[in-house]
């Protein structure tokens, strides 16, 4: 199916567009230095660029995969809480290290440990406040997030007044700075990302169950609390790994944007996860390349914006409830209903002509030979002359009507469809009248789909009644 292939194609287009984000510069600039810089970046000639690219891409992939479960667990914002809560942990770790031995404050592993502990504490606090007080989870998240971030900012001010020079880079953790990444660190990150990815893959079935039906999982004896905690731990892991590339404040985007974008392409959790991981990896890679080209823009921002580009394209073109398809589908549906209304009107004209009391049903020959005009159709419903012209045109295109001189005639397909549409519509009206007390839950269904909504025996029963009442009082269509 071509529509199915369109999706990946569009996403690839976005990736290429973003990946080649530097091309306009290439065209505009003739400066040698700049061109060679571009070449070096795009051809990945720098060892450091290659390693950073690998690290961020893996981070993007695992973020995209874990994000699917955060999204489905409806805990999207927990990642934001973890990110913001990590800040005081970094500052505290720095202060403690400086106190122990001045000058070693910026010890990356210790800072990460501090961030992890504080982030985890923030997430746990949200759960505690949510579970044991009357404060709801969204309020709990806002409280924890702002408190920790406030604390972190305060501590950073303290750090800046410490008599040491190494505090300068701490603020980079807020918005990310790939330039500060060193190859040796990135290898560690890459391995950690791969581990997170592996854990998620291993627990795929368990996490799916947790997100879908926690209560059933608990009744079945799965340790839901520990699985939930593990999911939070995975998010903390992503936050810590993303701290240096995308930064603490934006790490939520690495988790949630790819998953949300992927939701527009897939209705199955397995393909959803694969697509989300792919989008996460691609947007991280594109973001890294762009930020290598323009080192002055914060890397985190570029990675997030690349993800947003994927999201926007997915939201517009996604096969599963993407905006454009939804609109097209709705229009197609409306045209179909309009054509059915038109055919019903035609049928009713013929019926009024040949069997005025509705004592019998018009025969096929009568339906096929009858001629009727635009004006007759217009008189049947409250629709404008323009609308009828449109509908007639559409019906002619679908070979349901044929123009004969100035009049119209039903084709065999049109006659059959008209007969069915009228029958379904009358059955439906009869159903609404007969089973009025149970019907309201089903009235939103299209009348022409009656076979799909009602049970076969109900339809049989209705048909019997319709035949019995054919001679008596068939309910007049409300449009008459």
């Amino acid at each position, binding site marked *: 199916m071509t529509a199915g292939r369109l999706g990946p194609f569009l996403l690839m287009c976005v990736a290429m567009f973003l990946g080649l984000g530097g091309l306009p510069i290439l065209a505009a600039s003739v400066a040698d230095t700049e061109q060679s810089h571009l070449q070096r970046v795009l051809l990945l000639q720098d060892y450091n660029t290659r390693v950073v690219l690998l690290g961020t891409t893996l981070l993007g992939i695992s973020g995209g995969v874990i994000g699917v479960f955060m999204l*489905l667990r409806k805990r999207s914002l927990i990642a934001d809480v973890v990110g913001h809560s990590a800040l005081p942990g970094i500052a505290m770790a720095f202060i403690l290290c400086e106190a122990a031995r001045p000058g070693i404050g910026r010890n990356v592993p210790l800072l990460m440990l501090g961030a992890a502990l504080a982030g985890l504490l923030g997430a746990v606090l949200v759960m505690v406040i949510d579970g044991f007080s009357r404060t709801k989870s969204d309020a709990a998240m806002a409280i924890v997030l702002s408190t920790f971030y406030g604390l972190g900012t305060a501590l950073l001010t303290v750090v800046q007044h410490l008599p040491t020079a190494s505090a300068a880079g701490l603020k980079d953790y807020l918005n990310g700075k790939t330039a500060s990444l060193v190859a040796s660190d990135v290898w560690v990150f890459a391995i950690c990302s791969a581990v997170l990815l592996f854990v998620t893959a291993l627990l795929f*079935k368990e996490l799916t169950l947790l997100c*879908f039906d926690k209560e059933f999982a*608990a*009744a*079945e004896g799965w340790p839901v609390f520990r699985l939930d905690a593990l999911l939070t731990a995975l998010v903390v892991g992503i936050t810590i790994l993303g701290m240096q590339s995308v930064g603490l404040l934006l790490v939520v985007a690495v988790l949630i944007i790819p998953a949300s974008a992927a*939701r527009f392409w897939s*209705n199955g*959790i397995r393909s959803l996860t694969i697509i989300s991981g792919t989008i996460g990896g691609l947007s991280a890679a594109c973001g890294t390349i762009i930020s290598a080209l323009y080192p002055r823009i914060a890397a985190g921002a570029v990675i997030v914006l690349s993800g947003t580009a994927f999201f926007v394209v997915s939201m517009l073109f996604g096969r599963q409830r993407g905006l454009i398809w939804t609109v097209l589908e709705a229009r197609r549906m409306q045209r179909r209903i309009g054509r059915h209304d038109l055919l019903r009107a035609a049928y009713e004209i013929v019926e009024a002509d040949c069997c005025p009391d509705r004592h019998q049903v018009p025969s096929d020959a009568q339906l096929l030979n009858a001629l009727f005009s635009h004006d007759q159709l217009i008189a049947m419903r409250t629709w404008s002359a323009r609308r009828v012209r449109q509908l007639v045109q559409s019906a002619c295109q679908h070979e349901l009507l044929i123009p004969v001189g100035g009049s119209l005639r039903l084709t065999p397909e049109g006659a059959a469809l008209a007969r069915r549409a009228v029958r379904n519509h009358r059955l439906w009206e009869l159903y609404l009248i007969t089973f009025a007390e149970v019907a309201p839950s089903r009235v939103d269904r299209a009348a022409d789909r009656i076979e799909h909504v009602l049970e076969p025996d109900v339809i049989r029963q209705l048909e019997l009644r319709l035949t019995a009442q054919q001679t008596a009082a068939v309910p007049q269509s409300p449009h008459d």
Partner: protein
Amino acid sequence: MTEPQHPELVPLSIHDMTVAYQRRPVIWDIDFDAPAGSLIAIVGPNGAGKSTLIKASLDLVPKVSGDVLVFGEPYRAQRGRVAYVPQRSSVDWDFPVSALDVAAMGLYRHIGWFRPVTRRYRQEALAALDRVGMADFANRQISHLSGGQQQRVFLARALAQNADLYLMDEPFAGVDATTERAIVGILQELRASGRTALVVHHDLQTAPEYFDHVVLLNMRLVASGPMETAFTQENLRRTFGGKLPLLDQVGNRMAGGERT
């Protein structure tokens, strides 16, 4: 209440159970033994603690006091013999899984940690879907199913567990006639094969028709026992406090001995 002689034969034995949310007790002093191989309706007004009774039996909500034995042992040790059908509204039906995926969830415990759902288990899940007439919809995403079909998928998940005791929370709520018939058919199959089902049921009209035992609950256990002796007008009045317009109708039917 006297202790049963062979506790391992009693599917569900609730002794002196009290459950409270925060400070407000929801159900008090429940004493109840489910007879094996029977279909038991749990009936009571809204807020009577019907769901809580089931959830507390499954250790999903903490008990203040009392204990629950499943075939003579704590539930923890007997999970494999119990299947739970939660209320349909308890999950998000826009979740990206198919009907088959949901039915297969009933087998996860059996499959065990870390292992994927292999073809063999998918076949089992499909067979469970077939039993509720949903095999044709196996690959459909669950949001594209009607309410009754979703309920049948939930039932299929429980059937896949092949348990001896089924606890169902409002399976008949808001379902179409086909689904209602399918559920009744499954209940009868279960009874015929000696299984026991405890079902929260809201429709007094159909309760005597579908079930053979009844538990009348309104925070306390009002009455329990075989339909003929326990489902009386007097007991219903004590359960519902005369709030129910249907009551007299049901009472008349019971008095007339009419079972449709």
